[in-house]
C-alpha cells in the first residue's frame, strides 16, 4: 500500500484550486503580479499530485483504492410507507474515483491548466476576477474527470460552463459577448439533454437495495457504480431483493428507451465534442476567447465531450453503441474531412486551428467506432495528444498575436527570422498535429485507424485521405507564418520570453515523450480497456 491511498488524495486534487482561489480573493486588487504567481503555484499543486498519482497508479488494482465515497444528499421519497413497503430514497454521493480512462485526462487537465496559467501573462485587466474564474474552471474540469456520481458530474460540468462564460465574455476579443452567449446557449442545450437522460437513468437503472438490520431501503442512486452494474445486468437488483417488492418493478427499461437515452447522450456530448452539425459555437470561442482560455477550451473542454460519450454513452449502453457504430464512423469521417477541407480554406490562423480541432476529434470518433481494444486506445491516446498539441498551438498563437497584433495568414510571414525559437516550436507543433512519427499525434491516429481497419476497411481509406489533407493545411499555414518575406513592421520583434518559453518546452516535451514512448500512456489505458470495456466487446460476440 502506498501513502496515497491513506489520504483523500482525489479530494486534495479537486479542492486545491479552490484554496488558491481564496488566497487570490484576499490579495490586494492591483497586485497583478502576486495574483499571477499565486495562480501558477496553485495550478502546480494538482499537477504534482496527479503526476504522483499517475506513477503510483498501475501498481494498484485499477485505482480502486483511491475511491472516496460519502453520501451527500439523501431525500426520502415516501414516508407514509403504505402497504408495508419500505422506504424509498433518492441518494446522491460525493463519490470520486479514477481509472485508466480518467487518469490520463486528469493529468492532462492539470498540465494544460498549469501551462495556461503561465500563458495568462497576456491578460491585461481585472486579474483578480480572471484568476478566480480560472481556478474555479480548473476545479470544474478536474471534477468532471473525477466524479463517480451522475449529479456530481453534472454539477462540475455546469461549473465549467459558467466559468467559461465569464472568461470568454470578459477577457475575449472584439466579438466576445456573442461568442460567450453562443457558447452558453449551445452548451446549455447539451447539458439540458444530458440532465434529462441522467434523471431518467437515476430513476430506472440507479436502483439499489440496502438492508441495514431490519430496515430495508430502496434507493434510487446517482452513483455510477450502481447504474453501471444495473445496465450491465438488468436482473442484478432482483438478487438483492428480500422478496418484499411485490409487484413493483422499479427497473424497467425497454429497448426503445435505451435507444432514446443513448441518442440523447450522443447529442449532449456531441455538442461538446463537437460533432459536425453542432460545431459552430466552438469556432467562435476559438477565435474570440483569450489564448490561455482557448488552450483550456481546445485542450480539455472538448475532451470532456469525448470522455462523457465514452463513459456514459458507450459503457452504459454498449449494445446501443454497437448498433450505432457505422453512424459514428460516418460522423467521424465527416468531421475529419469537413474540418480538414475547411481548415485549408481559412485565412485566419485561429480558424485553421479550430477546424483542425474538429478534424482531429473526428479521429477520436473513428477510434470509438472501431469497437475494439486498439481503436479505443487510439481514441484515448488521440484525446491526450490533441489536448497537448492544441494547447501548445494556441499558446504560440497567443505569443504571436501579442507581438504582431494579428493572426491573419496574409499579414504574417517570415517570422522565423525575427523569432527563431517561436517559429521552431510552431513547426514542431505543426508536425505533431499532422501526425509525424515520433511525435504523439502519429500514435493516436495510427492506433485509431488500425482499430477501425479491422471492421470497416473502406472507411479507413477515406480517412487516410483526410490525414493527407491535414498535412497540406498545417504546412500551408505554418510555412506562411514562418517563411517568406518578413513584413517590415515585424522586423524588430523579440523572441519568446522565458515565461512563455517554459510552457512551450514542457508541452513539447510531453508530446515527444508520448510519441517516442507511447506505452507510458497505453499501459494505463489498457488497464481500463480490459476491465471496463468488456461489455462493449461482449456485444460483438452476440451480434
Amino acid at each position, binding site marked *: 500500500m502506498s501513502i496515497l491511498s491513506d489520504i483523500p488524495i482525489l479530494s486534495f486534487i479537486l479542492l486545491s484550486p479552490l484554496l488558491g482561489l481564496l488566497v487570490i480573493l484576499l490579495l490586494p486588487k492591483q497586485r497583478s503580479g502576486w495574483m499571477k504567481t499565486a495562480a501558477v503555484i496553485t495550478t502546480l499543486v494538482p499537477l504534482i499530485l496527479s503526476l504522483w498519482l499517475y506513477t503510483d497508479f498501475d501498481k494498484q488494482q485499477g485505482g480502486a483504492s483511491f475511491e472516496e465515497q460519502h453520501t*451527500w*444528499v*439523501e*431525500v*426520502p*421519497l*415516501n*414516508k*407514509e410507507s*403504505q*402497504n408495508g*413497503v419500505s422506504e*424509498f430514497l*433518492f441518494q446522491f454521493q460525493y463519490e470520486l474515483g479514477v481509472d485508466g480512462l480518467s487518469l490520463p485526462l486528469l493529468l492532462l487537465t492539470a498540465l494544460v491548466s498549469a501551462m495556461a496559467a503561465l500563458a495568462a501573462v497576456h491578460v491585461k485587466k481585472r486579474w483578480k*476576477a480572471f484568476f478566480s474564474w480560472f481556478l474555479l474552471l480548473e476545479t470544474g474540469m478536474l471534477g468532471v474527470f473525477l466524479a463517480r456520481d451522475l*449529479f456530481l458530474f*453534472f*454539477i462540475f460540468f*455546469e*461549473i465549467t*460552463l*459558467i466559468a467559461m*462564460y*465569464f472568461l470568454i*465574455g*470578459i477577457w475575449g476579443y472584439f466579438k*466576445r*459577448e456573442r461568442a*460567450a*452567449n453562443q457558447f*452558453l*446557449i449551445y452548451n*446549455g*442545450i447539451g*447539458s*439540458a*439533454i444530458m*440532465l*434529462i437522460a441522467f*434523471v*431518467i437513468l*437515476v*430513476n430506472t437503472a440507479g436502483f439499489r437495495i440496502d438492508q441495514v438490520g431490519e430496515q430495508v431501503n*430502496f434507493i*434510487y442512486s446517482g452513483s455510477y457504480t450502481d447504474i453501471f452494474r444495473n445496465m450491465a445486468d438488468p436482473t442484478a437488483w432482483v438478487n438483492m431483493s428480500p422478496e418484499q417488492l411485490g409487484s*413493483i418493478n*422499479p427497473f424497467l427499461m425497454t429497448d426503445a428507451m435505451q435507444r432514446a437515452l443513448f441518442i440523447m447522450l450522443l447529442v449532449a456530448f456531441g455538442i461538446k465534442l463537437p460533432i459536425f452539425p453542432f460545431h459552430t459555437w466552438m469556432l467562435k470561442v476559438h477565435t474570440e476567447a483569450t489564448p490561455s482560455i482557448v488552450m483550456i477550451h481546445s485542450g480539455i473542454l472538448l475532451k470532456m465531450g469525448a470522455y462523457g460519450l465514452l463513459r456514459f454513452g458507450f459503457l452504459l449502453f454498449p449494445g446501443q453503441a454497437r448498433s450505432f457504430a457505422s453512424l459514428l464512423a460516418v460522423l467521424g469521417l465527416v468531421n475529419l474531412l469537413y474540418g480538414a477541407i475547411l481548415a485549408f480554406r481559412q485565412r485566419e490562423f485561429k480558424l485553421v486551428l479550430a477546424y483542425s480541432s474538429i478534424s482531429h476529434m473526428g479521429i477520436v470518433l473513428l477510434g470509438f467506432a472501431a469497437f475494439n481494444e486498439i481503436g479505443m486506445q487510439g481514441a484515448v491516446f488521440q484525446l491526450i495528444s490533441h489536448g497537448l498539441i492544441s494547447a501548445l498551438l494556441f499558446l504560440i498563437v497567443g505569443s504571436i498575436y501579442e507581438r504582431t497584433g494579428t493572426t491573419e495568414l496574409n499579414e504574417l510571414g517570415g517570422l522565423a527570422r525575427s523569432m527563431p525559437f517561436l517559429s521552431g516550436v510552431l513547426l514542431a507543433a505543426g508536425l505533431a498535429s499532422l501526425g509525424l512519427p515520433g511525435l504523439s499525434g502519429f500514435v493516436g491516429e495510427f492506433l485509431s485507424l488500425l482499430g477501425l481497419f479491422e471492421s470497416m476497411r473502406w472507411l479507413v481509406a477515406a480517412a487516410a485521405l483526410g490525414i493527407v489533407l491535414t498535412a497540406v493545411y498545417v504546412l500551408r499555414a505554418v510555412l506562411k507564418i514562418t517563411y517568406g518575406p518578413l513584413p517590415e513592421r515585424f522586423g524588430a520583434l523579440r523572441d519568446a520570453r522565458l515565461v512563455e518559453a517554459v510552457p512551450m518546452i514542457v508541452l513539447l516535451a510531453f508530446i515527444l515523450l508520448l510519441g517516442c514512448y507511447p506505452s507510458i500512456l497505453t499501459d494505463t489505458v489498457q488497464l481500463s480497456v480490459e476491465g471496463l470495456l468488456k461489455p462493449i466487446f461482449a456485444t460483438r460476440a452476440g451480434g
Partner: protein
Amino acid sequence: MYEGVSFVPLTWTDMLYLAPELALAAVFLIAVILDLLLPKAVNRQVIGWLSLAGILASLALVVIRMIDMNQGGVSAEAISLLANSYRIDDFSSLLKIVFLTGTALIVLLAIGSERDEGGIADKAEYFYLLLPALMGAMMMASSGNLVSLYIGLELLSLTSYVLVGLKRKSVLSAEAAFKYVVTGGISSAMVLFGMSYIYGITGSVDLGLISEALPQAMIDFKALAYVGFFFMLAGFGIKIAAAPFHAWAPDVYQGAPTPISAFLAVIAKGAALAAIFRMLYSIKLFNASGDPYMAKDIYFILLVLAASAMLIGTMTALGQKNAKRLLALSGVANAGYLLVPIGISITIVHSSNFSEFVFYLVAYLLMTIGAFAVVTVVSRAVGHEELKGFAGMYYRAPWTAAAMVIFILSLAGLPVSGGFFGKLFILLGAANAKAYWLVAIIVVSSVISYYFYFGLVRQMFMRSGNDDSEIRLSAATGIVIWVCAAGTLGLGLFPGPLMTWIDAVFSITGDLIMGR
C-alpha cells in the same frame, strides 16, 4: 340541509392556538393608532421596525407551537379549531414559517429602500398594511374549509391592492393598482363561483365533508363538479400568475413599489399555491372512488398549466428590457415549477411532493427577494429600472454584483445554488412519476431562461455604464441581500438537512388528508 346559522364560540385555548395571527393583528392595530398619534416630525421608519418586531414575534410563536406539537410523536395530530374551519398542522406551520420569514425580509428591504421611494406619501401604511396581507396568507395556509380560505384570500388581496397603489404620484403605480384590482376581482369572483358549485353539489364547505360527499356528487352532478373545480383553479391561477392567467403580472410588478413586487411574487403566490395544495389533497381527489377520471383530469390540467407557465413565462421574458418586468415573468415560470409537485401523482414509491414544493418555495423566496433587493439598489443609483441600469455594476458595487450572480444562477437553475437542487428534486419527482414530457419542458424552459438571466450578467460584468461612482447601499438592504445570498448558496451546498427536516415533521395522512 340548511339548518340556520350557528356560531361556534371561540374559546381561550383556541385563542392560544391562534396566537401568531392574533399577534400580527395586535401589532397592526397598534401601528395604525401610532401612525395617527405620532407627530409628523417623527420618522415613520419606527413603524417599519415595529412591524418587523411583530412579524418576528409571530414567527417565534409559530415555531414554538410547532416544536410543541412535534414533541410527542413522529408527526403530530393536527389541531382543528372552530369546527374544523381553521387547522393548525405541520402543513400550515411550515408554510407560515416561510411566509413570515419572507415578509420579514421584505419589511427590512422596505425599511432600507424607504428613503428613495419619494412618491410614497403614506409611509406608515407601506409597512403596516403588510401585516394583514400576511395574515391573509397565513389563513389561506391554515384554512380547513372553503369559507375561511376565501376570507384569507380576500384579506390578502384587498390589502395588496392598496399596497400596489401606494406611489400616489406615479402614473405607473396607479395603473398597476387599477389593473390589479380588476384582475384580482375577477380572480376572487372565479374562486367564489367555483366554491359555490362545490358547496351546491356536496352540501358542505368543510374540506373533510366535501371529501366524503364527493363520490356520490360525482355520480349525480359530474359536469357541475368539473365546473366548480376548474373555476377555482382558474381563479387561483390568476393569483399565482401562471400562464395563461399571467398578463397582469408584468404591469403590476413594474408599477408597485419594489418590496411590494417582491411580496406579490413570493408571499401572495405561495399562499395561493398552498391553498391549491391543501384543497386538492384534502379532498382526496387522487383516490376519489366515484370517478377516477376527474382526478386524472384535474392533475393533468395542473400539469398543463405548469407547462404553459414555464414556456410562456420564459418566452415572453426574452424580450424584456425592464428588470422588474423580467422578474415578474420569471415569477410566471417559477409558478410553473411550483405547480409540478402539486400536479404529479402520488404513488407508493413517491409521495414527497410537499417537501419538493416547500424546498423550491424556500429557494424561490431567497433568490427572488434577493434579486428584487438588488433591483432597489440599482434603481436608486441610476433612477430607473431598465436592464441598462445594471451596466458597469461590477465596477460600481462588486460585492452586490457578485450576490446578484448567485441569485441569477439560482433562478436559472444552475449549480451551486438552492434553485438548482429545488429544480432537480422537482425534476426527479416528475421523472419518478414517469411524466417525461414534463421533465423535458422543465429543462428546456430553464435553458431558454439562460438567455435573459445571463443578459443581466452581461450588463453587470461586460458593459460599463456612464457613471463609475461607487454605489452605497443601506445596512438593511445589505443584510437582506446577503441573507438571501448565503441562504441560496447554503441550500446549494447542503440541500439534505432541509429536505430531511420537512420530511420528518410533515406527513400527508396526518397533516393533510383529514381523518374523520
